[in-house]
């Protein structure tokens, strides 16, 4: 899967590539012109777009890119966190909006969800170890045993599975569940409560012990 990262802050752009580099083919654009050029020359599956570029207004870029790469999913990443930008962006054809600062696991999850929506409309099944997840019906089966998960538990399961073999902080899990509100909390122990329940349900249905806890502050999905 090909990814274009349109972000003028090189350090940020590089960090994203470091995290996603193994899963996607990534390219970078640091200016409006580079972005337009690249989107004209190649076909991307997903484009991350920062609205505040030095040589152009992000919303203009959005229209350009939409024209050059109509098949690409577009996620706007913006420091402005302005409701107007969000509404305008979605109106102009962006598929998702993520405010800075974001966590890399969250970004990864959004890209994954977007590409799934665009490319695998018919295939909604994800396998992880001996667990099968049907994304559309939200049914989770271990082997052939169906398990009942709450909405929260399901979201956390997907989040971990999608970021498999990567360490995910409790903080990013909290953000995934509660968005903007997470940073108002003073601890993320509530995440522990949900993970505990999720683990219990998975284990009792015979799933492998895939959710590893790291020093009480992070989690990792490992399938050996």
């Amino acid at each position, binding site marked *: 899967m090909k990814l274009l990262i349109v972000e003028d*802050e090189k*350090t*940020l752009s590089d*960090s*994203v590539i*470091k*995290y996603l580099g193994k899963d996607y083919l990534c390219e970078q654009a640091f200016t409006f012109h580079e972005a337009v050029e690249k989107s004209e020359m190649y076909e991307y599956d997903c484009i991350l777009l920062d609205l*505040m570029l030095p040589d152009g207004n992000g919303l203009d870029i959005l229209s350009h890119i939409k024209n050059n790469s109509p098949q690409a999913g577009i996620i706007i990443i913006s*420091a*402005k*966190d302005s*409701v107007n930008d969000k509404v305008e962006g979605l109106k102009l054809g962006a598929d998702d909006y993520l405010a*800075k*600062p*974001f*966590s*890399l*696991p969250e970004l990864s999850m959004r890209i994954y969800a977007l590409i799934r929506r665009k490319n695998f409309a018919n295939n909604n099944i994800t396998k992880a170890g001996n667990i099968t997840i049907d994304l559309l019906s939200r049914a989770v089966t271990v082997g052939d045993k169906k398990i009942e998960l709450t*909405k*929260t538990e399901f979201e956390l399961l997907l989040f971990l599975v999608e970021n498999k073999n*990567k*360490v995910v*902080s*409790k*903080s*990013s899990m909290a953000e995934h*569940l*509660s*968005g*903007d*509100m*997470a*940073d*108002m*909390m*003073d*601890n993320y*122990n*509530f*995440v*522990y*409560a*949900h993970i505990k329940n999720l683990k219990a349900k998975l284990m009792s249905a015979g799933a492998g012990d895939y959710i590893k806890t*790291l*020093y009480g*502050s*992070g989690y990792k999905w490992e399938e050996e």
Partner: protein
Amino acid sequence: MSYSTLRQFIVFTVIIFLLATPVFYFLTRSYYAEELMDVIKGERIAQNISSTDLEEDIMTGVMIQYAIIIVLLGLSMVITLKFITRKLWNPFNDTLTKMEGFNLEQSEIPVFEESNITEFTRLNKAVSQLISRDKTVYKTQKQFTENASHELQTPLAIVKCKMDLLMQENLNSKQFILVSEIYGIVTKMGRINKDMLMLAKMENSQFAVNKTIELSGFIRKRLPVYNDLRGWGKVIFEDKSDGFSITANESLMDSLINNLVINAIRNTVPYGEIIISATADYISISNDAKNGPLDSTNLFSRFHHTADFQHSNTGLGLSIAKAICDYHKWDLAYIFSCNKHIFTIHFK
């Protein structure tokens, strides 16, 4: 032209009229009719004509003329003042109306009517300059606060991403915990930045209070997330609002309720009670207390920390809640009752 001015004018005219009458009488006697009366006196002596009438006649005639002149003058003055000045003052009224309707955040700079009267032209020019200067300052300030916030968010975003990457390295427990703690602090910085931006925007009146929000649906929509954040225990909603809706700014309303509920979540024991209650007059959020009542004197001031709220509290949450209530002209009150902290937003 106001009625008091008219009354004043009439009273004034009548007084002048009365004062001037003896003057006019003597003038007439000494000049206008003097010789005529002498002639008639002379004739009277010669021909025995009854004469008393003539003096009176002349006097009366002249007084009548006098009265007519006064009335005509007065009338023409009233008409002039009433109708012509109305037309004269139109541009001024127009300027005044435009100034009254002007709002720094929303309006374009008004264009004032042309006028041949120098004073009005001067006024319009001065007001236009004042408004455009104000607007420029406002715009600059707005840009500055938004840019400052944005500038800070970018390095924060970088640190966050670097932390995410650092976590992937094989860290031992000490290192991992340190990284998590730094992550937490960086997140808190991001929150403070967002909060300060919101406070600045409120001070600049940048939020329009124009959305009709139905309380019941608004709170219900957020209940699942609140319950997620609770982890151990629930957040209960007592809906007595009966479909009541309020006019507010949606983002501010969001922030207000979130702040109060999350405040309650942070400060309640696991499985303690948290209740959101909504009626047509108020929304209240109550939670079981851990350590007795809060010190209400400085509760809403910025960066205030209390014993109960000390862990990683940014200190801005309650200030923001208060500021949002003030913005909407609502009242935010805190009471301690039955070992519960109760925050109430009163709408009237």
